[in-house]
């Protein structure tokens, strides 16, 4: 058997292969040299060399978001691990399944302030679902198996496995466990039958119902069930930023996104409903604003979530159901179809009449006659040119909200953005992850001139892998969302939100070997997009749209205010 023994580095590679991993994003360094040597000798997966570790984690994260599979990143010890932290925290806040393998200094050097040593397990502890430090090569395979299991099950999340360099050199027999069970970790799948029955009863009794869906619907692959439920009942539905695509946005039963920049109809219906069904959503501050204001209106709440700690955290609910959202909704649908009871159609009709009045305010209208390029117009044209079928990644700020508002997603896993942490610099590496997973798909990164500069070095990775991403830069010269808050709440004192000396983005794109286009007039928007997705479809195209610098995102609920306290155009 001795000749069957593998080094720790070889075990890492074999585990990734046996876990079915096809793409790994990473960056080498001293502590992971043995792992990279083992990667060099294998063909089971491709390794994508990024230009900064943060990008490796974002790319792996978006790979996971767009496929539903666990993303994998490898980084070295010390700065490799600290650079990865923003990516890990981003994945943690949005519950993305990820395994991050970090190198560590040799076991004997741990605690000695060795070169490129940091306490990776300590640093990442508050922003991972779980993490491990490997102390014995014989634990390596089982730990990696556990890491994949923990990352993907229950409420998903990132798992860090910290591997000291000497462990990657030690040898032992290799066996990848077929399954793993942990006495301390048993996520709930099936919801409680009694609670489900109660929920269905409550739903059917509703006179002003509302269905509110979140990222859990996308992560839990429950979009078909949500669609089925909403259409069976004919109830209005809304979605959080993270849940977009969980229900087909062009459908009239969909009221648009809710929350700080949600539509009037979604926010008002959320505030004034009498029965609320929350599915895989967590009532966070950007969604319901002030919980006290939200609770002023009496309503009964049913909440389905795989994570019990998300239930009754910010808002007390009446019927909590812990379980996989798809399974629970399946059960609910069965009961609804078998039920002889019907929702009160007259009440429902009156509710819809009210909703249509809100909807008639057309809160997403904007000035279509402007001589300046309106960012909303760019997104609408992007939707048209891509037939609504593109994967859209975004960074964080105004452009992110416009993309969410004006690109009606009709499928899950197409809208890839950092919702919880709000990480600028996410968009471009995320687009890389998506394009690697879906080589033939249209992938666009909607970004701002602030965000894009936070990971712009990845244009080089895109060149190496010939990724035909379209970078849609809505360039208003300002850190737009900061500028908007300063305009509204800081008496127009624009402190440090204006960037002078921006690079010539066309030349910059060309310097990296890509196509750059500058668009200054509204009439040139569509032709540029058509070129990007047509003539240059196999190239990365970087389009610098010079947009109206004073445009704001509406509606807007100021921080700390309630859902019915929106600022409108």
């Amino acid at each position, binding site marked *: 058997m001795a000749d069957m023994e593998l080094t720790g580095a070889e075990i890492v590679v074999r585990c990734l292969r046996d876990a079915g991993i096809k793409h790994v994003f990473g960056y080498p360094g001293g502590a992971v040299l043995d792992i990279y040597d083992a990667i060099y000798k294998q063909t089971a997966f491709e390794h994508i060399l990024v230009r900064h570790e943060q990008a490796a984690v974002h790319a792996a994260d978006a790979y996971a978001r767009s496929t539903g599979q666990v993303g994998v990143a490898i980084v070295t010890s010390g700065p490799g691990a600290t650079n990865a932290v923003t990516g890990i925290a981003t994945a943690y806040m949005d519950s993305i399944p990820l395994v991050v393998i970090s190198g560590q200094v040799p076991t004997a050097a741990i605690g000695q302030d060795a070169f490129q040593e940091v306490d990776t397990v300590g640093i990442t502890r508050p922003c991972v*679902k779980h993490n491990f*430090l490997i102390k014995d090569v014989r634990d390596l395979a089982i730990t990696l198996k556990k890491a994949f299991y923990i990352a993907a099950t229950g409420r998903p999340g990132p798992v860090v496995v910290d591997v000291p360099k000497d462990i990657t050199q030690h040898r032992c027999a290799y066996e990848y466990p077929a399954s793993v069970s942990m*006495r301390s*970790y048993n996520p709930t799948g099936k919801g409680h039958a009694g609670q489900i029955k109660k929920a269905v009863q409550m739903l059917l009794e509703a006179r002003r119902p509302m269905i509110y869906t979140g990222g859990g619907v996308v992560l839990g692959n429950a979009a078909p069930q949500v669609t089925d439920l909403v259409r069976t009942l004919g109830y209005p539905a809304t979605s959080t930023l993270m849940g977009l695509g969980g229900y087909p946005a062009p459908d009239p039963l969909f009221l648009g996104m809710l929350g700080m920049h949600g539509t009037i109809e979604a926010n008002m219906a959320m505030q004034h409903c009498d029965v609320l069904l929350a599915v895989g959503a967590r009532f966070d501050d950007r969604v319901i604003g002030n919980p006290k204001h939200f609770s002023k209106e009496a309503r009964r709440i049913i909440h389905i979530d795989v994570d019990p*700690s998300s239930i009754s955290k910010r808002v007390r609910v009446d019927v909590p159901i812990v379980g996989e959202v798809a399974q629970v909704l399946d059960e609910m649908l069965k009961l609804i179809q078998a039920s002889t009871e019907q929702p009160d159609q007259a009440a429902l009709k009156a509710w819809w009449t009210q909703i249509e009045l809100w909807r008639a305010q057309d809160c997403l209208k904007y000035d279509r006659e402007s001589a300046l390029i309106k960012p909303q117009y760019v997104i609408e044209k992007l939707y048209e040119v891509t037939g609504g079928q593109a994967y859209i990644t975004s960074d964080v700020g105004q452009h992110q909200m416009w993309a969410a508002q004006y690109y009606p997603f009709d499928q899950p896993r197409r809208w890839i953005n950092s919702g919880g942490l709000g990480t600028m610099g996410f968009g471009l590496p995320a687009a890389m992850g998506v394009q690697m997973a879906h080589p033939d798909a249209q992938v666009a990164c909607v970004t701002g001139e602030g965000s894009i500069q936070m990971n712009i070095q990845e244009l080089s990775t895109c060149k190496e892998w010939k990724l035909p991403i379209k970078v849609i830069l809505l360039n208003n010269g300002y850190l737009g969302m900061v500028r908007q808050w300063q305009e509204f709440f800081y008496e127009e004192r624009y402190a440090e939100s204006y960037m002078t000396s921006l690079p010539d983005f066309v030349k910059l794109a060309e310097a990296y070997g890509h196509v750059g286009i500058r668009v200054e007039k509204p009439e040139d928007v569509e032709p540029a997009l058509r070129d990007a997705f047509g003539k240059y479809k196999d190239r990365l195209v970087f389009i610098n749209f010079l947009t109206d610098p004073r445009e704001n995102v509406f509606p807007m609920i100021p921080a700390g205010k309630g859902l019915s306290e929106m600022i409108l155009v």
Partner: protein
Amino acid sequence: MRHILSLLMENESGALSRVSGLFSARGYNIESLTVAPTEDATLSRMTIVTRGSEDVIEQITKQLNKLIDVVKVQDLSDGSYIERELMLVKVRASGDLREEMKRLADIFRGRIIDVSDKTYTVELTGPGSKLDAFLQAVDPAAILETVRTGASGIGRGDRIMKI
């Protein structure tokens, strides 16, 4: 409200920091925390005394359960339970004080476990309130040093936490 939570967790390195980190990151308060391995060396038993509204305690319990290393969480204060804390207290014991300290220790069923010509070290166990009462009974100037373990708790009778 004061609550006393009992946890069984994997006896892994870093497990304690996951729990204490959770409390500090989410702004929960810890009055005391004790931890040691159980008769099964792969498991540690932890007792946490905390304060909070019912909502906060519910969140704390859920968040603790969410930690991968945590096998079981029980709010002992949900039923009947016993709690004990150990205190070692070094007191001045010279002159008149020598007899008085001995008497006080006896009244509180403490044991004098170390003696010097000027001091006694008294070992006391009991609920935290009893230890507080002892400290209040002694002239503050006579207290030289106190060491308290924090509470350990266990359910009464058939109330057993095991896996």
